[in-house]
Protein backbone atom coordinates (compact mmCIF):
# COMPACT_ATOMS: atom_id res chain seq x y z
CA UNK A 1 0.00 0.00 0.00
CA UNK A 2 1.27 3.45 -0.86
CA UNK A 3 0.67 6.34 1.51
CA UNK A 4 0.91 9.45 -0.65
CA UNK A 5 0.77 13.12 0.22
CA UNK A 6 2.79 16.33 0.19
CA UNK A 7 5.35 17.20 2.87
CA UNK A 8 3.60 17.84 6.18
CA UNK A 9 0.53 15.82 5.16
CA UNK A 10 0.87 13.53 8.16
CA UNK A 11 2.34 10.43 6.49
CA UNK A 12 5.19 9.92 8.98
CA UNK A 13 2.88 10.74 11.88
CA UNK A 14 0.45 8.07 10.72
CA UNK A 15 3.26 5.53 10.29
CA UNK A 16 4.61 6.25 13.78
CA UNK A 17 1.09 5.88 15.21
CA UNK A 18 0.66 2.59 13.36
CA UNK A 19 3.99 1.49 14.72
CA UNK A 20 2.53 1.93 18.21
CA UNK A 21 4.82 4.54 19.71
CA UNK A 22 2.84 7.69 19.00
CA UNK A 23 -0.37 7.95 21.02
CA UNK A 24 -3.46 8.57 18.91
CA UNK A 25 -5.67 11.50 19.93
CA UNK A 26 -8.86 9.84 18.69
CA UNK A 27 -9.94 6.52 17.23
CA UNK A 28 -8.46 3.06 17.70
CA UNK A 29 -5.79 1.25 15.72
CA UNK A 30 -6.47 -2.45 15.32
CA UNK A 31 -4.16 -5.13 14.00
CA UNK A 32 -5.84 -8.34 12.85
CA UNK A 33 -8.89 -7.43 14.96
CA UNK A 34 -6.98 -6.70 18.18
CA UNK A 35 -6.28 -3.22 19.58
CA UNK A 36 -2.67 -2.27 18.87
CA UNK A 37 -0.40 -2.18 21.91
CA UNK A 38 3.34 -1.36 21.93
CA UNK A 39 4.12 -5.01 22.75
CA UNK A 40 1.97 -6.28 19.87
CA UNK A 41 3.48 -3.70 17.53
CA UNK A 42 7.00 -4.78 18.47
CA UNK A 43 6.26 -8.35 17.43
CA UNK A 44 4.20 -7.67 14.34
CA UNK A 45 5.28 -4.33 12.90
CA UNK A 46 8.67 -3.02 11.80
CA UNK A 47 9.39 0.57 10.81
CA UNK A 48 12.07 1.71 8.40
CA UNK A 49 12.60 5.38 9.30
CA UNK A 50 13.20 8.26 6.93
CA UNK A 51 16.69 8.59 5.48
CA UNK A 52 17.24 11.87 7.36
CA UNK A 53 16.76 10.11 10.72
CA UNK A 54 19.89 7.99 10.25
CA UNK A 55 23.47 9.01 11.05
CA UNK A 56 25.12 7.59 7.92
CA UNK A 57 28.61 8.52 9.15
CA UNK A 58 28.30 6.41 12.31
CA UNK A 59 31.20 3.90 12.56
CA UNK A 60 29.31 0.72 11.75
CA UNK A 61 29.45 -2.05 9.15
CA UNK A 62 26.44 -3.13 7.11
CA UNK A 63 26.44 -6.45 8.96
CA UNK A 64 26.31 -4.79 12.39
CA UNK A 65 23.56 -2.40 11.29
CA UNK A 66 21.42 -5.25 9.99
CA UNK A 67 21.97 -7.29 13.17
CA UNK A 68 20.41 -4.42 15.18
CA UNK A 69 17.09 -5.53 13.69
CA UNK A 70 17.01 -8.24 16.33
CA UNK A 71 18.01 -6.43 19.48
CA UNK A 72 16.21 -8.57 22.02
CA UNK A 73 16.24 -12.35 22.39
CA UNK A 74 18.58 -14.56 20.39
CA UNK A 75 21.29 -12.59 18.61
CA UNK A 76 21.24 -13.12 14.86
CA UNK A 77 24.07 -15.21 13.43
CA UNK A 78 26.13 -14.41 10.36
CA UNK A 79 23.89 -16.69 8.27
CA UNK A 80 20.72 -14.82 9.32
CA UNK A 81 22.30 -11.50 8.41
CA UNK A 82 23.71 -12.78 5.12
CA UNK A 83 20.30 -14.24 4.22
CA UNK A 84 18.50 -10.90 4.56
CA UNK A 85 21.32 -9.10 2.76
CA UNK A 86 20.83 -11.52 -0.10
CA UNK A 87 17.09 -10.79 -0.11
CA UNK A 88 17.73 -7.10 -0.67
CA UNK A 89 20.54 -7.65 -3.17
CA UNK A 90 23.48 -6.74 -0.92
CA UNK A 91 25.09 -10.18 -0.67
CA UNK A 92 28.82 -9.92 0.00
CA UNK A 93 28.68 -6.29 1.17
CA UNK A 94 28.22 -7.05 4.88
CA UNK A 95 31.74 -6.10 5.89
CA UNK A 96 31.58 -2.66 4.21
CA UNK A 97 31.29 0.46 6.34
CA UNK A 98 27.85 2.03 6.02
CA UNK A 99 29.22 5.25 4.52
CA UNK A 100 31.05 3.26 1.83
CA UNK A 101 27.71 2.33 0.22
CA UNK A 102 25.76 4.33 -2.37
CA UNK A 103 22.50 6.01 -1.32
CA UNK A 104 20.39 3.21 -2.81
CA UNK A 105 22.51 0.51 -1.17
CA UNK A 106 22.21 2.31 2.17
CA UNK A 107 18.42 2.27 1.87
CA UNK A 108 18.51 -1.44 1.09
CA UNK A 109 20.77 -2.06 4.10
CA UNK A 110 18.20 -0.28 6.26
CA UNK A 111 15.46 -2.39 4.67
CA UNK A 112 17.48 -5.51 5.51
CA UNK A 113 17.58 -4.42 9.16
CA UNK A 114 13.79 -4.01 9.08
CA UNK A 115 13.44 -7.49 7.55
CA UNK A 116 15.38 -9.09 10.37
CA UNK A 117 12.69 -7.95 12.81
CA UNK A 118 10.04 -10.56 13.50
CA UNK A 119 7.28 -8.65 11.69
CA UNK A 120 4.68 -9.32 9.04
CA UNK A 121 3.81 -5.65 8.45
CA UNK A 122 6.61 -3.34 7.27
CA UNK A 123 6.17 0.43 7.41
CA UNK A 124 8.65 2.16 5.10
CA UNK A 125 8.91 5.92 5.54
CA UNK A 126 9.92 7.52 2.23
CA UNK A 127 12.34 4.73 1.24
CA UNK A 128 12.82 6.12 -2.28
CA UNK A 129 13.53 9.72 -1.25
CA UNK A 130 16.89 11.24 -2.25
CA UNK A 131 18.21 8.28 -4.23
CA UNK A 132 19.04 8.11 -7.96
CA UNK A 133 16.53 6.61 -10.46
CA UNK A 134 18.36 3.26 -11.04
CA UNK A 135 18.63 2.69 -7.26
CA UNK A 136 14.99 3.60 -6.92
CA UNK A 137 13.94 1.06 -9.55
CA UNK A 138 16.08 -1.55 -7.83
CA UNK A 139 14.54 -0.80 -4.44
CA UNK A 140 11.00 -0.95 -5.86
CA UNK A 141 11.79 -4.37 -7.33
CA UNK A 142 13.02 -5.62 -3.95
CA UNK A 143 9.85 -4.27 -2.31
CA UNK A 144 7.68 -6.06 -4.88
CA UNK A 145 9.53 -9.33 -4.18
CA UNK A 146 8.93 -8.88 -0.43
CA UNK A 147 5.19 -8.40 -1.08
CA UNK A 148 5.13 -11.51 -3.25
CA UNK A 149 6.75 -13.45 -0.40
CA UNK A 150 3.74 -12.69 1.83
CA UNK A 151 4.77 -9.54 3.70
CA UNK A 152 2.52 -6.48 3.88
CA UNK A 153 4.26 -3.20 3.06
CA UNK A 154 2.94 0.30 3.76
CA UNK A 155 5.17 2.75 1.91
CA UNK A 156 4.97 6.51 2.33
CA UNK A 157 5.94 8.80 -0.53
CA UNK A 158 5.40 12.37 -1.69
CA UNK A 159 5.88 11.27 -5.30
CA UNK A 160 2.70 11.14 -7.42
CA UNK A 161 4.46 9.67 -10.44
CA UNK A 162 4.12 6.42 -12.35
CA UNK A 163 5.58 4.41 -9.43
CA UNK A 164 2.11 4.48 -7.88
CA UNK A 165 0.88 1.93 -10.41
CA UNK A 166 3.11 -0.68 -8.78
CA UNK A 167 1.02 -0.65 -5.60
CA UNK A 168 -2.13 -2.64 -4.89
CA UNK A 169 -3.72 0.14 -2.81
CA UNK A 170 -3.10 3.87 -2.61
CA UNK A 171 -4.12 6.15 0.22
CA UNK A 172 -3.85 9.91 -0.35
CA UNK A 173 -3.41 12.14 2.67
CA UNK A 174 -3.18 15.87 3.23
CA UNK A 175 -3.89 16.25 6.94
CA UNK A 176 -7.04 14.22 6.23
CA UNK A 177 -7.89 11.31 3.98
CA UNK A 178 -8.45 12.58 0.41
CA UNK A 179 -8.78 9.34 -1.48
CA UNK A 180 -8.17 5.62 -1.24
CA UNK A 181 -8.40 2.56 -3.45
CA UNK A 182 -6.63 1.06 -6.42
CA UNK A 183 -4.20 3.44 -8.21
CA UNK A 184 -6.57 4.04 -11.14
CA UNK A 185 -9.55 4.77 -8.85
CA UNK A 186 -7.46 7.19 -6.81
CA UNK A 187 -6.24 9.03 -9.91
CA UNK A 188 -9.85 9.44 -11.03
CA UNK A 189 -11.04 10.63 -7.60
CA UNK A 190 -8.22 13.12 -7.37
CA UNK A 191 -9.02 14.38 -10.88
CA UNK A 192 -12.65 14.98 -9.80
CA UNK A 193 -11.42 16.67 -6.63
CA UNK A 194 -9.13 18.97 -8.63
CA UNK A 195 -12.01 19.91 -10.98
CA UNK A 196 -14.22 20.53 -7.93
CA UNK A 197 -11.57 22.82 -6.40
CA UNK A 198 -11.14 24.75 -9.64
CA UNK A 199 -14.93 25.21 -9.99
CA UNK A 200 -15.10 26.57 -6.47
CA UNK A 201 -12.18 28.89 -7.17
Amino acid at each position, binding site marked *: MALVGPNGAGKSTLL*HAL*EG*HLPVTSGVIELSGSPLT*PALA*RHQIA*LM*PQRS*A*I*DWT*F*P*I*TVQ*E*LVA*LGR*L*FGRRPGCCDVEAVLQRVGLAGLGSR*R*LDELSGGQQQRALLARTLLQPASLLLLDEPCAAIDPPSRTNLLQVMRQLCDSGLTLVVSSHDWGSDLDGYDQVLVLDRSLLAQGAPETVRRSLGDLRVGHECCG
Partner: protein
Amino acid sequence: MADSWWLTPFAIALVVGMLCPLAGTALLVQRRLFQVNLISHAVLPGLAVALFWGIEPGLGGLISGVLFALAAERMTSALPQGDRNREAVLNSVLAGSLGLGVLLIPLLGIRVDLEAVLFGDLLAAGPRELIQSLVAFAGIVALLVLRYRQYVYLGVDPVGAQAAGLRVNTLRFLLTLVAAAAVVSAVSAVGIVLVVSLMAAPALLAMPKARSLRQALLRSALWGLLLSGAGFVVAVQPAINLPPGPVIGVVCMATLPLQLLRR
Protein backbone atom coordinates in the same frame (compact mmCIF):
# COMPACT_ATOMS: atom_id res chain seq x y z
CA MET B 1 60.73 7.31 47.85
CA ALA B 2 61.64 10.90 47.10
CA ASP B 3 62.22 9.98 43.47
CA SER B 4 58.82 8.33 43.04
CA TRP B 5 56.71 11.48 43.65
CA TRP B 6 55.58 11.38 40.03
CA LEU B 7 54.21 7.83 40.08
CA THR B 8 50.68 8.50 41.41
CA PRO B 9 50.12 11.66 39.30
CA PHE B 10 51.42 9.80 36.24
CA ALA B 11 49.09 6.87 36.95
CA ILE B 12 46.16 9.33 37.26
CA ALA B 13 47.17 10.97 33.97
CA LEU B 14 47.12 7.56 32.27
CA VAL B 15 43.78 6.44 33.76
CA VAL B 16 42.12 9.79 33.04
CA GLY B 17 43.76 9.67 29.59
CA MET B 18 41.76 6.52 28.82
CA LEU B 19 38.62 7.38 30.77
CA CYS B 20 37.87 10.78 29.22
CA PRO B 21 38.17 9.66 25.56
CA LEU B 22 35.82 6.73 26.21
CA ALA B 23 33.15 9.10 27.52
CA GLY B 24 33.98 11.64 24.81
CA THR B 25 33.66 9.11 21.96
CA ALA B 26 30.39 7.71 23.35
CA LEU B 27 28.98 11.25 23.51
CA LEU B 28 30.44 12.34 20.17
CA VAL B 29 28.64 9.58 18.25
CA GLN B 30 25.40 10.61 19.98
CA ARG B 31 26.13 14.25 18.93
CA ARG B 32 26.16 15.26 22.60
CA LEU B 33 29.81 16.18 23.15
CA PHE B 34 28.83 19.72 24.10
CA GLN B 35 27.22 18.22 27.17
CA VAL B 36 30.70 17.45 28.54
CA ASN B 37 31.58 21.11 28.38
CA LEU B 38 28.37 21.94 30.21
CA ILE B 39 28.87 19.25 32.87
CA SER B 40 32.49 20.26 33.45
CA HIS B 41 31.48 23.86 34.19
CA ALA B 42 28.47 22.78 36.23
CA VAL B 43 30.44 20.67 38.74
CA LEU B 44 31.68 23.79 40.54
CA PRO B 45 28.46 24.68 42.45
CA GLY B 46 28.14 21.11 43.77
CA LEU B 47 31.81 21.03 44.67
CA ALA B 48 31.43 24.25 46.70
CA VAL B 49 28.29 23.04 48.50
CA ALA B 50 29.92 19.66 49.28
CA LEU B 51 32.94 21.39 50.78
CA PHE B 52 30.63 23.59 52.87
CA TRP B 53 28.73 20.54 54.18
CA GLY B 54 31.96 18.60 54.70
CA ILE B 55 31.07 15.76 52.32
CA GLU B 56 33.09 14.29 49.43
CA PRO B 57 33.57 17.19 46.94
CA GLY B 58 33.61 14.79 43.98
CA LEU B 59 30.13 13.55 44.89
CA GLY B 60 28.81 17.09 45.11
CA GLY B 61 30.39 17.91 41.74
CA LEU B 62 28.90 14.79 40.18
CA ILE B 63 25.39 15.58 41.41
CA SER B 64 25.49 19.20 40.34
CA GLY B 65 27.01 18.33 36.92
CA VAL B 66 24.25 15.82 36.25
CA LEU B 67 21.48 18.10 37.53
CA PHE B 68 22.52 21.06 35.37
CA ALA B 69 22.96 18.76 32.33
CA LEU B 70 19.47 17.33 32.84
CA ALA B 71 18.01 20.80 33.33
CA ALA B 72 19.63 22.00 30.10
CA GLU B 73 18.41 18.91 28.25
CA ARG B 74 14.90 19.51 29.57
CA MET B 75 14.97 23.15 28.45
CA THR B 76 16.25 22.29 24.97
CA SER B 77 13.95 19.30 24.45
CA ALA B 78 11.07 21.62 23.56
CA LEU B 79 13.13 23.12 20.70
CA PRO B 80 13.42 21.31 17.35
CA GLN B 81 16.69 19.55 16.39
CA GLY B 82 19.15 21.96 14.76
CA ASP B 83 17.45 25.02 16.25
CA ARG B 84 20.15 27.59 16.93
CA ASN B 85 18.44 28.55 20.18
CA ARG B 86 19.41 25.16 21.63
CA GLU B 87 23.07 26.16 21.58
CA ALA B 88 22.19 29.50 23.19
CA VAL B 89 20.33 27.72 26.00
CA LEU B 90 23.22 25.29 26.62
CA ASN B 91 25.77 28.10 26.69
CA SER B 92 23.64 30.14 29.08
CA VAL B 93 23.35 27.19 31.49
CA LEU B 94 27.09 26.53 31.16
CA ALA B 95 28.06 30.11 31.99
CA GLY B 96 25.38 30.48 34.65
CA SER B 97 26.37 27.34 36.52
CA LEU B 98 30.04 28.31 36.50
CA GLY B 99 29.09 31.79 37.72
CA LEU B 100 26.99 30.27 40.50
CA GLY B 101 29.92 28.09 41.56
CA VAL B 102 32.29 31.04 41.69
CA LEU B 103 29.74 33.06 43.72
CA LEU B 104 29.12 30.22 46.20
CA ILE B 105 32.77 30.20 47.28
CA PRO B 106 32.68 33.61 49.05
CA LEU B 107 28.98 33.30 49.94
CA LEU B 108 29.53 30.01 51.81
CA GLY B 109 32.85 31.22 53.21
CA ILE B 110 34.85 28.22 52.00
CA ARG B 111 38.42 28.07 50.76
CA VAL B 112 38.91 26.61 47.29
CA ASP B 113 41.99 26.77 45.08
CA LEU B 114 40.00 27.99 42.07
CA GLU B 115 43.01 27.81 39.76
CA ALA B 116 43.51 24.10 40.57
CA VAL B 117 39.81 23.40 39.95
CA LEU B 118 39.80 25.28 36.65
CA PHE B 119 43.11 24.06 35.20
CA GLY B 120 44.02 21.02 37.32
CA ASP B 121 46.84 20.38 39.77
CA LEU B 122 48.01 16.92 38.85
CA LEU B 123 51.20 17.02 40.89
CA ALA B 124 49.17 17.55 44.10
CA ALA B 125 46.87 14.58 43.37
CA GLY B 126 47.17 11.48 45.55
CA PRO B 127 45.85 7.93 45.94
CA ARG B 128 42.30 9.18 46.62
CA GLU B 129 42.12 10.84 43.19
CA LEU B 130 43.63 7.70 41.62
CA ILE B 131 40.95 5.48 43.20
CA GLN B 132 38.25 7.95 42.12
CA SER B 133 39.41 7.82 38.50
CA LEU B 134 39.71 4.01 38.58
CA VAL B 135 36.12 3.73 39.86
CA ALA B 136 34.88 6.07 37.10
CA PHE B 137 36.89 4.08 34.54
CA ALA B 138 35.34 0.80 35.72
CA GLY B 139 31.89 2.44 35.58
CA ILE B 140 32.15 3.61 31.99
CA VAL B 141 33.72 0.35 30.79
CA ALA B 142 30.91 -1.63 32.47
CA LEU B 143 28.22 0.60 30.93
CA LEU B 144 29.69 0.42 27.44
CA VAL B 145 30.21 -3.36 27.60
CA LEU B 146 26.75 -4.12 29.00
CA ARG B 147 24.82 -1.67 26.84
CA TYR B 148 27.03 -1.64 23.76
CA ARG B 149 24.42 -2.60 21.15
CA GLN B 150 21.85 -0.23 22.64
CA TYR B 151 24.29 2.70 22.34
CA VAL B 152 25.12 1.71 18.76
CA TYR B 153 21.40 1.66 17.92
CA LEU B 154 20.82 4.97 19.69
CA GLY B 155 23.72 6.60 17.85
CA VAL B 156 22.92 5.41 14.35
CA ASP B 157 19.12 5.68 14.55
CA PRO B 158 17.65 7.47 17.59
CA VAL B 159 14.09 7.32 16.23
CA GLY B 160 14.36 3.61 15.47
CA ALA B 161 15.93 2.95 18.88
CA GLN B 162 12.87 4.38 20.60
CA ALA B 163 10.55 2.48 18.29
CA ALA B 164 12.47 -0.76 18.96
CA GLY B 165 11.58 -0.44 22.63
CA LEU B 166 14.88 0.86 24.00
CA ARG B 167 14.71 2.99 27.13
CA VAL B 168 16.30 5.94 25.39
CA ASN B 169 16.00 8.36 28.32
CA THR B 170 17.58 5.87 30.74
CA LEU B 171 20.45 5.20 28.32
CA ARG B 172 21.04 8.94 27.90
CA PHE B 173 20.90 9.50 31.66
CA LEU B 174 23.42 6.71 32.34
CA LEU B 175 25.80 8.18 29.79
CA THR B 176 25.40 11.62 31.35
CA LEU B 177 26.14 10.08 34.75
CA VAL B 178 29.38 8.37 33.68
CA ALA B 179 30.43 11.46 31.71
CA ALA B 180 29.98 13.52 34.90
CA ALA B 181 32.00 10.92 36.85
CA ALA B 182 34.73 11.15 34.21
CA VAL B 183 34.75 14.95 34.46
CA VAL B 184 34.95 14.90 38.27
CA SER B 185 37.81 12.38 38.13
CA ALA B 186 39.66 14.49 35.60
CA VAL B 187 39.40 17.71 37.65
CA SER B 188 42.64 16.94 39.50
CA ALA B 189 44.44 16.16 36.24
CA VAL B 190 43.34 18.78 33.75
CA GLY B 191 40.70 20.87 35.56
CA ILE B 192 37.14 21.64 34.51
CA VAL B 193 38.13 24.01 31.70
CA LEU B 194 40.59 21.68 29.97
CA VAL B 195 38.81 18.34 30.42
CA VAL B 196 36.89 18.73 27.17
CA SER B 197 40.17 18.64 25.20
CA LEU B 198 40.92 15.16 26.55
CA MET B 199 37.40 14.08 25.65
CA ALA B 200 37.32 15.53 22.14
CA ALA B 201 40.80 15.25 20.60
CA PRO B 202 41.34 11.48 21.05
CA ALA B 203 37.76 10.84 19.88
CA LEU B 204 38.41 12.87 16.74
CA LEU B 205 41.62 10.93 16.08
CA ALA B 206 39.87 7.61 16.59
CA MET B 207 36.78 8.14 14.43
CA PRO B 208 38.12 8.19 10.84
CA LYS B 209 38.03 4.75 9.21
CA ALA B 210 36.83 3.04 12.44
CA ARG B 211 34.64 0.11 11.39
CA SER B 212 32.67 -0.09 14.62
CA LEU B 213 31.97 1.94 17.73
CA ARG B 214 34.02 -0.64 19.67
CA GLN B 215 37.03 0.06 17.46
CA ALA B 216 36.54 3.82 17.81
CA LEU B 217 36.34 3.50 21.61
CA LEU B 218 39.50 1.40 21.85
CA ARG B 219 41.43 3.68 19.52
CA SER B 220 40.32 6.81 21.36
CA ALA B 221 41.39 5.28 24.71
CA LEU B 222 44.82 4.47 23.26
CA TRP B 223 45.19 7.95 21.77
CA GLY B 224 44.13 9.48 25.10
CA LEU B 225 46.63 7.33 26.95
CA LEU B 226 49.37 8.49 24.60
CA LEU B 227 48.44 12.19 24.64
CA SER B 228 47.91 12.40 28.38
CA GLY B 229 51.06 10.41 29.16
CA ALA B 230 53.13 12.46 26.69
CA GLY B 231 51.74 15.72 28.07
CA PHE B 232 52.65 14.70 31.61
CA VAL B 233 56.16 13.54 30.69
CA VAL B 234 56.86 16.74 28.76
CA ALA B 235 55.47 18.96 31.55
CA VAL B 236 57.59 17.47 34.36
CA GLN B 237 60.92 17.66 32.52
CA PRO B 238 63.24 19.85 34.64
CA ALA B 239 64.01 22.02 31.63
CA ILE B 240 60.30 22.66 31.03
CA ASN B 241 58.67 22.37 34.47
CA LEU B 242 55.11 23.45 33.58
CA PRO B 243 51.70 22.42 35.00
CA PRO B 244 50.75 19.11 33.32
CA GLY B 245 47.04 19.98 32.80
CA PRO B 246 47.54 22.86 30.37
CA VAL B 247 50.38 20.98 28.62
CA ILE B 248 48.03 18.01 28.04
CA GLY B 249 45.45 20.46 26.66
CA VAL B 250 48.02 21.96 24.25
CA VAL B 251 49.26 18.50 23.17
CA CYS B 252 45.64 17.53 22.39
CA MET B 253 45.17 20.69 20.31
CA ALA B 254 48.46 20.04 18.48
CA THR B 255 46.98 16.80 17.10
CA LEU B 256 44.30 18.67 15.11
CA PRO B 257 46.37 18.79 11.86
CA LEU B 258 46.95 15.04 12.26
CA GLN B 259 43.19 14.54 12.57
CA LEU B 260 42.63 16.41 9.30
CA LEU B 261 45.29 14.30 7.55
CA ARG B 262 43.61 11.08 8.69
CA ARG B 263 40.32 11.97 7.00
